């Protein structure tokens, strides 16, 4: 299996790790988002709590979640290795650097760090609270009973947290960071994996930008809506997102046409 190690420690191998873990994380984002959108249902948090309970106890989901953590750590470690390698490749920097690439593509590390800080806050806020305490030991998290089942009332924790304006602000800022990270990362992932073809590049571009903007936008909308007490605003959200999707689509295809014209 020596060739595997050799492959994965080459520059291209490391890039492969970035792309594959990035792809997995992107997929995770979608699943996570679908769950989280339950928060905006006007049902006092039932749907969300049931979903959270399921996610917390299903063995398959548990395995996937371990994978998820592994991947995020792998993504981070590899990014640190790559960044150090890349910095070493230019020991003396330019006195005058003209910069001929997109800002986000040059600052993936900084954007990643924003996401990392967010992750720490986010996890200690919710996941930590829910995992590190148990019913018997006395919990930070209140419990709720739906019919037969008793479970943590995570919804309450979330709802209370999102009354703090600074936390909401942190979420929004972080999601903007994520959006920039993905605006380069998503398309870049295809390039890394070797999926670049003049016929299909436009599709990748459209999907990439839509993904990079819509997913974080919806994530960010959740705390904002809850802060403004707009539960039940799913419909508004979807309407808003729909408009955003059209705008992004128009901008990308316009940019693409101009690029072709050059």
């Amino acid at each position, binding site marked *: 299996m020596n060739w595997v190690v050799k492959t994965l420690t080459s520059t291209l191998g490391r890039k492969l790790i970035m792309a594959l873990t990035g792809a997995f994380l992107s997929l995770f984002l979608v699943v996570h988002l679908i769950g989280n959108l339950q928060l905006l249902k006007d049902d006092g948090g039932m749907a969300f709590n049931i979903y959270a309970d399921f996610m917390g106890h299903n063995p398959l989901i548990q395995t996937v979640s371990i994978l998820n953590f592994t991947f995020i750590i792998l993504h981070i470690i590899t990014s640190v290795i790559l960044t150090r390698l*890349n910095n*070493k*490749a*230019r020991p003396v920097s330019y006195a005058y650097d003209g910069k001929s*690439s997109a800002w986000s593509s*040059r600052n993936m590390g900084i954007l990643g760090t924003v996401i990392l800080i967010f992750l720490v806050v986010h996890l200690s806020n919710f996941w930590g609270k829910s995992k590190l305490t148990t019913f018997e030991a006395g919990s930070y998290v209140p419990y709720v009973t739906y019919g037969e089942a008793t479970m943590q009332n995570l919804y309450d924790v979330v709802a209370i947290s999102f009354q703090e304006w600074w936390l909401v602000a942190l979420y929004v800022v972080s999601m903007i960071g994520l959006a920039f990270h993905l605006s380069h990362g998503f398309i870049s992932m295809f390039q890394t994996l*070797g999926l670049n073809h003049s016929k299909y590049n436009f599709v990748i571009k459209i999907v990439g930008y839509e993904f990079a903007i819509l997913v974080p936008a919806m994530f960010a909308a959740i705390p904002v809506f809850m802060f403004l007490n707009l539960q039940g605003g799913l419909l508004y959200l979807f309407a808003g997102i729909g408009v955003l999707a059209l705008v992004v689509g128009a901008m990308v295809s316009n940019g693409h046409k101009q690029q072709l014209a050059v």
Partner: protein
Amino acid sequence: MNLTLKIWRQKNNKEKGKMVTYKVQDISDDMSFLEMMDVLNEELLKKGEEPVAFDHDCREGICGMCSMYINGHPHGPERTTTCQLHMRSFKDGDTITIEPWRAKGFPVVKDLVVDRSAFDRIIQAGGFVSVNTGVSVDANEIPIAKDVASEAMDAATCIGCGACVAACKNASAMLFVSAKISHLGLLPQGKTEKNRRVQRMIAQMDAEEFGACTNTGACAAECPKSISLVNIARMNREYFAAKVASEA
């Protein structure tokens, strides 16, 4: 026009360098950038100072020898080689900053001259078709579709100047390496040994301590020969496939 030039001066690989400011007068629009440098050098020489060392040869944009990083861009503001850049791209009173390519893989030799032999070593690792002189079959025996041939040609247009490395924030050489891998990998003659080629060239590229590609696209945006990012994707594909499928 009159210009202020800030130029990197460095005596040799061991000593430290610094930016030095010079003035040049009466520069004509029709001069090439290198002719403007000639004017400066004549003046320096006549004052008894050492002229600025820089690489150049064909002055036609094809040998890939010229290599100045001008105002933050390899080969300057236009999409061409330094030798094909003309002074009409600048205006009277401008300050122009001129630096050498900067990369671990391209150590500075003197002033604006760098050592690009790393590129030669990458080609030596596998950038060829293994045929000896004289054993070949008739040239028309292997038909090659026109579009495939012209795609290979587009990749083969690379002049090996190193602007891609200079432009990349990671000093990555992937555009250069991928251009050769694409050129040979696209053609039937080169396909036979493509697994070996891609693995060996990339191993050499890593050994030369070029950075990893972050897909910023700066290389392709600055390439004087418009080598496309598609080549990097093709190289990645070939590399992963080779790693998974090949014996070695």
